[in-house]
C-alpha cells in the first residue's frame, strides 16, 4: 500500500498544477496517467458549441481545476458534486458546460481525476453508470492506503474553502 505522495513518486499519479507562479494551493488535484493522456489528447479535440459557453472545453476544465485548487467555494454552483448511484461508489464529478470529469476524494481537500468525457457523449451514450463503475474499479485496483476514499455525501465532508 502507498500514500498519495508515493504514488506520485512512482508515476501512478500526477499532481495537476493550474496555478500561476507564486500562487499556493488550498486543495490538491491528482490525476491518473490515463487521465493525463486524455487531457493532452482528447480534451482539446472535443467539439466546442459556442451556444454553451464562451470558453472552449479545455478552458472550462482549466477554470474549474483552478478554482478547485485555489480553494473557491463550490457549494452553490454544483460544478463539484457526488454522483448518487445505488450502491454508492463514492464517485464525484466536476461539471463544466461541455465536459464531465470523474474521480474520487482520497482525503479532505484532495481529488483524484480518473476519467473525462464530453457532456454530449455521456448523455447520448448514457455512460454515467459505466464511468462510475470504471472509476470505482480503478480505485479498487490502485495500491493506495486505506481508506482509499472519503464516503461522506456532503460538500463539507470532502472540502474546506479558502474564503
Amino acid at each position, binding site marked *: 500500500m502507498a500514500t*498519495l*505522495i508515493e504514488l*506520485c*513518486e512512482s508515476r501512478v499519479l*500526477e*499532481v*495537476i*498544477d*493550474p*496555478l*500561476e507562479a*507564486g*500562487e*499556493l*494551493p*488550498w*486543495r*490538491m488535484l491528482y*490525476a491518473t496517467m490515463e487521465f*493525463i493522456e486524455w*487531457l*493532452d489528447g482528447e480534451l*482539446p479535440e472535443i467539439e466546442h458549441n*459556442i*451556444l*454553451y*459557453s*464562451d*470558453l*472552449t472545453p*479545455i*478552458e*472550462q*476544465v*482549466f*477554470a*474549474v*481545476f*483552478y*478554482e478547485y485548487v*485555489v*480553494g*473557491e467555494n463550490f457549494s*452553490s*454552483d454544483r460544478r463539484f458534486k457526488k454522483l448518487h448511484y445505488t450502491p454508492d461508489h463514492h464517485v464525484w464529478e466536476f461539471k463544466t*458546460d461541455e465536459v464531465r470529469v470523474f474521480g474520487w476524494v482520497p482525503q479532505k*481537500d484532495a481529488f483524484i481525476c480518473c476519467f473525462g468525457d464530453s457532456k454530449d457523449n455521456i448523455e447520448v451514450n448514457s455512460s454515467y453508470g459505466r464511468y462510475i463503475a470504471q472509476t470505482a474499479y480503478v480505485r479498487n485496483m490502485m495500491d493506495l492506503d486505506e481508506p482509499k476514499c472519503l464516503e461522506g455525501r456532503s460538500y463539507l465532508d470532502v472540502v*474546506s474553502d*479558502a*474564503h
Partner: protein
Amino acid sequence: MSYQMRIDPKSRKSARFISGLQKKIQRALLESGKTQQEIASILGVDRSVVNRRLKGSANLTARSIAEFAYAFDKDVKIEFVDKDAAALTNWTLSSGKVIEIDDTSKSYARGTVEPDTKYVLERAGS
C-alpha cells in the same frame, strides 16, 4: 514534478476571468436573497433567460451583467489591477512534492522551540 495543462497564457487568463465572473454573479444572486423568478420579473424576461445567463457563460454580456446589477440593486465595478500572489494555502510544497507537516514538526517564532517537540526533519525536508 507536476503536470500543467497545455493551455496558452491568454486562454488561462480568459478562463479564470470568465469563470470567476460567473461565480461572482451567482454569489451576488444568493446574497440578494431573490429568486431567479423575481430577477426575471424585475428584468422583464422569462426565468429561463435568467437561468441560462447564470449557468452558461455564453449568455454573459456587459449589458446582461449591468442588468443583473440593476436587479440585485447593486453597482458594478471593473478595475484592472496589478497581479498579486495568493496568500492562502492549506498545503506545504517542497520541490514539487506535497508534504503534510504534522503538529510535532511545527516551528515557532523568534527561534524558540517547544521543548518536547520531536522534529521529523527528513520528512519535512524531503
